[in-house]
């Protein structure tokens, strides 16, 4: 098990969020959408220019910009 930032995750990789290091409006928005520690996520894909990233969370699909994904730390299996 290793901790990486959400930006570094590859397509179809899944993991569990361990920390959200953003405050203010961004932190609020991230949490509003269900991205809180303990939540399982998996990467669905990236936009044609590799940014934003689309991910599956709690049965829905969300997208985040890479610079927003930087604030989210995820624990993933060593593969």
């Amino acid at each position, binding site marked *: 098990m290793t901790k990486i930032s959400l930006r570094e995750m590859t397509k179809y990789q899944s993991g569990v969020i361990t920390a959200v290091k953003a405050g203010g409006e961004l932190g609020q928005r991230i949490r509003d959408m269900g991205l809180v520690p*303990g939540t399982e996520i998996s990467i669905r894909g990236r936009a044609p220019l590799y940014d934003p990233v689309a991910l599956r969370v709690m*049965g829905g699909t969300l997208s985040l910009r890479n610079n927003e994904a930087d604030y989210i730390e995820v624990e993933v299996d060593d593969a």
Partner: protein
Amino acid sequence: MRNELTIALAGNPNSGKTTLFNALTGARQHVGNYPGVTVDTKEGSYTKGGLSCRLVDLPGIYSLSPYSEEEVVARDYLVNQRPGVIINIVDASNLERNLYLSCQFMEMGVPMVIALNMVDAAKKRGIEIDHERLSALIGLPVCPVVARSGQGITELMATAIAHAQEHDKWQPAHISYGDDLDAAMLDLSTMIEEGGFLTRDYPARWTALKYLEKDDRHLEIGAKEDHALSSRLLEKVEQVARHLEQTVGSEPDAMIADHRYGFIKSILKQNVVHRTMDPDRLYMSDRLDNVLTNRFAGPLIMLLVLLGLYNFTFTYSALPVAWSATFFSWLGGVADTFLAEGYFKSMLIAGVIDGIGGVLGFVPLIMFMFFGIALLEDTGYLARVAFMMDRVFRIFGLHGSSVMAYIISGGIAGGCAVPGVMATRTLRSPKERMATLLTVPFMNCGAKLPVLALLVGAFFSENQAMYMFLFTLLAWLMALLAAKLLRLTVLRGESTPFVLELPPYRFPTFKGLLIHTWEKTWHYIKKAGTVILGISILLWAMMTFPGLPDSERQVFENQRQEIIRQASPQLPASPEDAGQAGPEARAMQKDLLEVANAEAEKALRYSVAGRIGTALEKISWLPGFDWRTNIALVGGFAAKEVIISTLATSYSLGEVDPEASDSLGETLAKDRSWDAVKALSVIIFVMFYAPCFVTVACIVKEAGSWKWGLFSMTFNTLFAFLLSTMVYQVGSRLF
């Protein structure tokens, strides 16, 4: 106070809230307006089986944070209007995240019923929800519904009305946020209750929670109510925050959010949700996304879809637009025939009929555009467009969703900024939205095209197509650069978090599309209509008054008499018969027309608009414009195609059809004051100066204040003036 029960509909975007509202109210709805707010709150009524109530559709939100206008509107509505009960719509396939908002309503304590929507779609995805169990665990009625088909909505309304009658007090739910915060909540609530702090409007626990979250808006209200007590509460909050930072390294608002999800998970774990399929399996929607947002196929398909939307809007609306134009020119003709000559007639035709025609002429366009956008939005494709385009648009401080507005405004030459400005509604980020709506008028709309075509045809006739294409690219470049400029200056600030939901693809309901389209169109007619009529009359007056003095008019009258006297007396006197008459009669009519045109030129120059145009020569020599061009540009504020007819009048050419302006083109090409450099300078100015007043009226309406309308006119005109001056001064030195 009204005795009728009010029910508010609240829920996440994409939870089917609007569909439910439409199903409940049918066509009995209207848009409620709150001053200074651009977010719509729709109202309607519901009557069935002896039950009746008023329904309010609150904007779709994910939480009750103070960051967006939608959220603030929803919060303020609940507190100030005190609906009897709220129906919280949650998507059954996305229960965990949807309940996050429900959880906040429970903390607030508003009487609430949960509508578990789209249970049919959830079932297809292998998700079954034990709604009775969920209801028992959260202590609120839960009604399964399918808003699309109307299934379960009668029961839902009966439950909601009964619930409202049984619960008239707000009862905040006690959710645990961990030992430290629970203790703080208790202390704060006690202080709040003892001080009677805001308790008239808000439950003490809610205020305590908002203070712990450091909710700016609530702190502001609190400080106004009792500054000393507010400061003491904040001191206490700081203490707790420091303690949490040292012990767990987290902030109160983050911890509160975590515990809300913890609360939701603990409930859902108790056999509420039954899954019969792997939650990560690929649904139809995901498979579609694999193609539609594919690295190579995605952008290509998007281009085709946007082209399709554009064609749909502008091709299919062409016929009704032409009907409307024919009707109003017929009406103008009728007025011309039956009314006596004079200012009243002139005002009625040029001011009122053309003005109303101008407003209604856009209606088919707006209807088709909104239908197209509603289709893209309701199917879920619009979110994918934003997803794919965001990287490019972010460079200029915009949002992925901005692309739609630009294309509709003329990103593919020939659009219209009016529906373009209105299309910015799909953007939820306020700064990005404002930057988009202020720069979409830079695009080459259908009304600028004839002006461009005229000048390109007269001065760059060898490579017409290439020049037109270059001007389209130039419009994009300048619009994006101007957006960047605005985002670095007046609209400065961090970009709004993108965090965007990509909802599953759905088939939209036809009824929903129609209601959506009609609502937006009616809104346009009502709001823009009044302003436009007023300005149209004003512009007419500017180009008419003051009329030529009698002495001047006498000169032209004498010329006319002279022409008639010289012609043989047996000639027909009315112009209608001239067609059948001999060459002498035609020569006379031609001479008379020349006199009339010369008089029109003189009158135009004498009018307020003419004087403005002449006065402007003091600065307009910089981009190389003479008084004739100036008047035409002033007239272009009414509508860009008016530039052609005004220019023609100022060159004594009489009435010229913008679509067939060859004679004007020839005149300009021969005129020694015009050359390619001046033509280019005028083209650039026409492309970028103040948008037409219909667009300005829409900007005012969408931005929520006159300030932005004025800003748009000034900023664009200055921007255009600088560019044209540069082109003209550099160009005339080089060539």
